[in-house]
């Protein structure tokens, strides 16, 4: 009996080691770009939870396959042999129906918690308009943000530590406003205004990407988001206001 | 069973078996009938997709219905509904007639049904010509024309089927034993009628 069980013990031990190594590697790999918002932090944690939950499942599947190939492959002389006629095992089937159901519902429940935290409206937030058109982005800073006239710019500046609500509109076809460093995106749809909100936490310049095929120039529909300290943001707004003070109302009216 | 290569059907037709063994019938439902019912499921889903469009434009977006400045001829369309519904009865009558072996009844029933269907389509086209708006005007007009037009296309297909059945009826086909050729197109025609009741209710009345 002991000798028969040895391969299974070897397989089980290797599987456990593989799971451990897999989890370690999953932390070592540099999966994401810079983590520049509170939402990114939550969503990266979710990702790691998902990976840790997935590794054992994958390892178990592969272990069973490899173990079967190792132990049960046809040996010489077994050409006409059949396996034992096992038709099923209700207890086992209930087990592998129930456990994944619970696991999946648990994970999806946790993802809703993350979603709610990420989309919660904070006490204070500013709104910035985003307009997509083939093949460029432009940004509208309303008077509530500028403290003066509305500003329309092709540059995106956001203050660090303040929640920003992007109100997105399209002038032609569907685009998607994606900032990988914030881990957030949403389609920009003609006819409706869509939103997402983020709180930037890390100063720096990050790419803004159009992530929905919008035509010939889609590959080049890029922009940059500048996350800057509050004071610098105010200064930038002030410079925009003074620059456009000549042709005052041009920005806000077009949106 | 030992034939390794496929024998050429023409070469062997005379001396080997002349066809396949009769298939076992594992269900009481006729294959043709079942095929038509499944096809109607597909058709219902086509209408379902158009009704989805209708739902989004009229209900989800809350656009006024009918669009401002347009009216739908509810009365005329109601007349038309009556015409189409009565054609369902006449085709049923034709089916009953042939089941009893009454060829004259079959011919009369089919011809009446066909003519009723034609008048429905004619009135519908006439309605398009006089309704005073075009599908290019706005989304409501688009979906009005699309739903009624989709149904009209089905009436047209149904009429073709009815025409073929009528031709065959006048050529003396069908008998009390063999009347599936009337029955299966008949089911399609009933479907077209029922679908019109749905379209009429949602588009004109509600």
């Amino acid at each position: 009996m002991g000798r028969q069980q040895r391969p299974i013990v070897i397989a089980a031990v290797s599987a456990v080691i593989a799971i451990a190594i897999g989890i370690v590697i999953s932390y070592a790999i540099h999966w994401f770009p810079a983590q520049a918002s509170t939402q990114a932090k939550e969503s990266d944690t979710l990702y790691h939870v998902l990976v840790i939950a997935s590794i054992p499942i994958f390892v178990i599947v592969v272990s069973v396959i490899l173990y079967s190939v190792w132990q049960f492959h046809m040996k010489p002389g077994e050409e006409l042999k059949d396996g034992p006629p096992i038709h099923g095992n209700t207890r086992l089937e209930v087990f592998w129906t129930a456990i994944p159901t619970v696991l999946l519902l648990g994970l999806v429940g946790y993802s809703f918690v993350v979603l709610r935290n990420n989309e919660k409206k904070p006490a204070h937030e500013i709104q910035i308009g985003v307009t997509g058109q083939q093949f460029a982005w432009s940004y509208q800073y309303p008077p509530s943000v500028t403290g003066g006239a509305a500003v329309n710019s092709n540059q995106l500046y956001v203050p660090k530590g303040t929640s920003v609500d992007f109100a997105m509109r399209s002038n032609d076809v569907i685009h998607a406003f994606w900032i990988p460093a914030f881990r957030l995106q949403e389609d920009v749809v003609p006819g409706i205004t869509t939103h997402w909100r983020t709180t930037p936490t890390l100063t720096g310049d990050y790419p803004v990407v159009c992530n929905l095929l919008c035509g010939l120039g889609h590959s080049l529909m890029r922009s940059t988001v500048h996350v800057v300290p509050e004071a610098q943001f105010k200064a930038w707004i002030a410079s925009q206001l003074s620059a456009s003070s000549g042709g005052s109302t041009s920005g806000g009216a077009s949106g | 069973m030992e034939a390794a290569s496929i024998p050429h059907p023409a070469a062997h037709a005379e001396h080997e078996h002349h066809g396949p063994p009769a298939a076992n019938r594992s269900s009481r439902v006729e294959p043709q009938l079942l095929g038509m019912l499944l096809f109607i499921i597909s058709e219902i889903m086509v209408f379902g997709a158009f009704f989805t469009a209708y739902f989004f434009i009229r209900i989800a977006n809350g656009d006024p219905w009918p669009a401002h400045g347009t009216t739908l001829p509810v009365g005329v369309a109601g007349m038309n509904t009556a015409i189409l519904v009565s054609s369902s009865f006449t085709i049923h009558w034709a089916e009953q007639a042939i089941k009893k072996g009454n060829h004259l009844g079959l011919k009369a029933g089919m011809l009446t049904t066909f003519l009723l269907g034609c008048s429905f389509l004619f009135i519908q086209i006439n309605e398009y010509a006089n309704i005073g708006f075009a599908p290019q005007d706005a989304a409501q007009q688009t979906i009005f024309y699309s739903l009624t037009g989709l149904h009209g296309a089905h009436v047209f297909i149904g009429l073709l089927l009815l025409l073929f059945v009528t031709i065959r009826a006048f050529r003396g086909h069908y008998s009390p034993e063999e009347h599936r050729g009337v029955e299966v197109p008949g089911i399609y025609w009933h479907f077209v009628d029922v679908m019109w009741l749905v379209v009429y209710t949602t588009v004109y009345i509600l």
Partner: protein
Amino acid sequence: MAARFRAPGFYRAALMMLGGVLFATALTWIVRMATGHATFHHYLSPDAILTVSLIAVPLAFLVGIGGFDYWFYWAAGRATRPEDHSSHGASSWKDYFRINTDHKVIGVQYTVNSFFFLLVGGLIAMLMRAQLAQPGSHFVDGNTFNGLFSVHASLLIFLFIIPVFAGLGNFVIPLMIGAPDMAFPRLNALSFWLLPVAGLMMLGSFFAPGGAFADGWTAYAPLSVNAPIGQTFFALGVQFAGASSIMTALNFLVTIITMRAPGMSFFRMPLLVWANFATSLLVVIATPFIAASQFFVLLDRALGFNFFNAAKGGDVLMYQHVFWFYSHPAVYIMMLPGFGIISEVIAVKARKPIFGYRMMAFSLLAIVGLGFTVWAHHMFTSGMAAWIRIPMAITTAVIAVPTGIKIFSWLATLWRGVLHLDTAMLFALGFLTTFTLGGISGVMLAMVPFDIHVSATYFIVAHIHYVLFGGSLMTIYAGVYYWFPKMTGRMYDERLGKWHFWTTFVFFNLTFGPMHILGLQGMPRRVSTYASQFADLNLFISIASFGLGLSTLLFIYNIITSWRGGPRAVGNPWRALTLEWQVSSPPPVFNFDRVPTVVGGPYEYGVPGAVHGIFAPAPSPTVADAGAGVVHAPSQ
């Protein structure tokens, strides 16, 4: 000569197609003239003629080749004749190029035609990878690149995966259930000939003014509404491919329901039959939605309707709802028949009954039901109402349960079996590995906050290829190797087959594995150039993809040489129990001399004296009502 043009065939088809073009020209001219100069500046518009031609010419071709002949007889009131079988069987390769009502010939036609489009689609992928090997390269221009990935996806989805399963099913299912043919052989023939039409139409779009359709296979409105005429080729090509799928699905359902052999209760059907039954339900119910979505686009394009014109009250998101209501179930249409193939292969090659047969069948039906409730998980970032994400995320997570049941049951089937590790089995095991990965990334994508980040990125590209290549294509290879002796009467080269498996498996993972990271890192899909930070991984992927492309040549070489000169196959080389293996290879023209009687389950390997079907009259009627898993072997 005149007779040549009157008899159904390619000559008549060519003539009819010419007529189709003339008809389209005349029709548009008359309509434009009747509606007047105020609306139209020119009576002859190339776009209008092309659009109408794209409907008229394929139909004319089908009439010419003879797809409708019988129904014309019927319509004209001539005497109906029962199937005369004159077009059964194939004695030379030329018989594969005519209307043929034999399900085995149609099965081969389907399969070969599908693999032709696999090669074309694969070649297109190679061009794309050549462009993407370096950022900012100019191997092809931007518009061509957009056309390449759109045609790549459309061909492989609508002209390869969906029809190749229908082809294998066409060949095998009537044999498996003990039927002499499909329920509607003429419809079956017509459904095949729609496919080359649809495929050539999509390929032909490359020659259209303005280039091929370039809006992705999803063809989101309003981009597709304002695109050049190439988009019409897609909108109409999909109609023909969709009509073909619906016809075949209808045929499968009616055949399976009404033509099973005596004793073949539903729970004695092989799981491949179950899988195609479930798939056909999905096709019949869901396919009309993609047809409608493309009708909407076409009406907007050609006649100026306002379905997707936001300025006139149209609704852009409606397109996505209608489109995904088909295209999500389509994922299962592309996967369930593969599940069926894997069940056949694993049971036979592991010499064990399928573990939990009934759960395997029920989980298929569960996937069918749940498959209709998850479509909006493609739209988590679409701007639809936020609450819809919650039910859709839950159903998406739950649909992994029946899929998991299948995976675990296959693993349990392997356990303590006698594993014959030939090519078909290797592909089945490879499938289990890669599809598990695809399933796992699928579950991750159900988690809304994560999906918000990776939606429409290379993570999605990786996921879909793990599901459709690592999932569907692996099962297709397994199925082709498994039934190759039955379909051709020849054995394939096992050594080459194993080489094919290992090269495919390794290069597949090297190609698509790193794409997950690219997506997480922030590389969007459907771009012809990218930020330089992604350059290393992309070069690596491109090189691996060329290896993957080359590995396919091993398969093609093996199939062609084996078909021409492989050793003759015996009737049942795998010692399988299911009925298709109980006749000669290839099967006789009419499948069976006598309809077999089924007396036991299809997978009773290891059960002493187990028999699935016998070719004698039923011993007694009581045998017919027993359930699956219970063996009533005649005493020996």
